[in-house]
């Protein structure tokens, strides 16, 4: 049984196990008698539709592709004719490549470029997340607690409209702004602050600005939802007891809005780390972004197995971050998904 075939078997096995459990419970009368059977509750036609629709999505669009990609990353890069043949064995060579790079000669070396790109990506994503949070928190607070309902709707619209402009166009807009003849450079030169135009893009400043800009909305909404549920009286009470505004936020508002904060931070981090457009269009020639490396493996090297391995590493990093956030903030997964 090839590893590829195994991928199909695992979901079927899981479903069968749950089905058996459900039948066993019903037979023993341990379940709730007011719960009717699924087919009984929805009629045959609808039940079939529901099951088929959900099965197609969860199996063919989610579970199977992921598992397939993961198992593919353990295969060597082969020409199509060699696949399934004797050379097609399970191997860790792509993962080894990530850490060690090409082994030329006898000295042990590390794949410094890729490792460095990986850590830099994660670090920058973290910083962008934090900066985003600091930027958006006051606005979310204002929206949730201070703005009246009419103003609120207006501000929300004002927030949403820019985000209907595609992220690529927005990246482009920043490029226009920050380019050598762009507005900012011209303004700075005219004001006499610098002599020649400063290459923002090479210095990665464009990248940082572009990344934090792109996900402002993603951070604002969960924060807003999290803070909105807080009873205004609690803040009044805290102020009444003499707490400074810093302490009010630290002790009353933020602990309450924890799920919202966790949600916003998680999403921004994932989107930043997995971002393609910003590094491609706002990065300088030396910018190394991990996701761009994955892109190159696919479109330039046509090395799908290796690309899958790197993609899987990225996925693991994201999952790791999510788990970290869940642990640090002490929230559950259900509270994060809005």
């Amino acid at each position, binding site marked *: 049984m090839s590893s590829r075939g195994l991928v199909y078997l695992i979901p079927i096995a899981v479903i069968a196990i749950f089905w058996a459990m*459900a039948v066993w419970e019903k037979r023993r009368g341990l379940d709730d008698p007011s719960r009717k059977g699924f087919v009984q509750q*929805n009629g045959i036609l*609808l039940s079939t539709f529901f099951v088929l629709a959900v099965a197609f999505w969860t199996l063919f669009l989610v579970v199977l*592709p992921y598992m397939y990609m993961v198992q593919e990353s353990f295969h060597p890069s082969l020409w199509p004719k060699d696949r399934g043949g004797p050379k097609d064995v399970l191997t860790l060579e792509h993962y080894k490549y990530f850490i060690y790079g090409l082994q030329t000669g006898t000295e042990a070396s590390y794949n410094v470029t890729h490792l460095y790109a990986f850590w830099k990506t994660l670090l920058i994503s973290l910083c962008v997340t934090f900066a985003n949070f600091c930027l958006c928190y006051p*606005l979310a607070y204002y929206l949730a607690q201070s703005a009246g309902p009419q103003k609120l709707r207006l501000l929300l619209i004002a927030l949403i*409209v820019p985000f209907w402009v595609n992220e690529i166009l927005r990246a482009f807009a920043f490029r226009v702004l920050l380019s050598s003849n762009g507005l900012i450079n011209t303004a700075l030169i005219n004001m006499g602050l610098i002599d020649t135009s400063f290459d923002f893009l090479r210095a990665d400043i464009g990248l940082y600005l572009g990344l934090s800009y792109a996900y402002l909305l993603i951070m604002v909404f969960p924060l807003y939802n999290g803070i909105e549920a807080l009873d205004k009286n609690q803040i009044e009470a805290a102020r009444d007891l003499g707490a400074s505004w810093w302490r009010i936020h630290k002790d009353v508002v933020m602990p309450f809005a924890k799920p919202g904060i966790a949600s916003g931070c998680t999403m921004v981090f994932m989107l930043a780390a997995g971002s393609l*457009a910003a590094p491609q269009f706002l990065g300088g020639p030396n910018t190394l972004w991990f996701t761009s490396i994955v892109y190159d493996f696919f479109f330039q090297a046509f090395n*799908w197995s290796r690309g899958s391995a790197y*993609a899987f590493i990225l996925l693991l990093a994201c999952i790791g971050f999510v788990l970290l956030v869940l642990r640090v903030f002490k929230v559950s997964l259900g509270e994060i998904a809005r």
Partner: protein
Amino acid sequence: MTSRLVYKLMTGFYLLIFFAYLFGPLAVMGVTAFNTPNYPTAYPFEAFTTKWFTALFNDRDMMEGLWNSVIIGIGVVCLAVPVGLAASIVMTQIYPRARSLYYLITVSPVLTPGVIIGISTVIFWKDFAETTGLKPYLYKGMILAIFGQASFICAYCMLIILARLQRFDRAQEEAALDLGASYPQVFWHILIPFLRPALFSAGIIAFLSSFENYNTTTFAILADKTLVTVLAGRVRQGTDPSLSALAVIIIAVSLVGAISYEILKRREERRALEAAARARAAERGEVALGGAVPTAA
């Protein structure tokens, strides 16, 4: 009361900076759309022109991309809204022990980087299409783009519909059954009308998310193009302000959309208030009669 004043000033200043950061780049780009130089320039402003808008419409690749994006968008809506509906109903009825796993699986595409979804879609469907011999039908950029996007857009739809579904009064379903309706009738007469606003929002969100998606589509689209991938290509090559023109159009369209939404919402609120007022009048009339209501013969 100076602390209040300071607070208000600081809030105003902060809001100003925030929205300047938000709108600034777009405003600048909007200006460049009407400026004549071949490279998007805002300052100095040479002359006013609309030639970039016409250039946009004459751009064949762009138009082809636009058409494909619309088709894919419609495809995604037709797939994601029914699936989202089915998924949310299953979520409320699934065997309780399996629910956590089911939730994890259905929500995971939302949290997964789009790149990974795109890659996995292509890898899986290529092999699947080959082994089942459906390659010429399934292994196409448009189809794979729909599949890849649907992976997480179904999740969006499911969450939107689920939020509304959880506010559904089960007693209405029972009342309809009690009156003799069959289950399909209950579904179409009672549940779907209730869910209609959510289905509508889900459809809109699905279309918009599909239209503007880049990370996943860029892998899944293979050799075809969508508006967004064409854009990406143009930006990479360095370009003329026709892109700025596109941005202006998008902003104009979304503003129109937002304003119409606002108008519709206000009208709906007004109608609800009127109905409530009529109910209250009826209550008062009833109490005034001392609870006695004319009984029919």
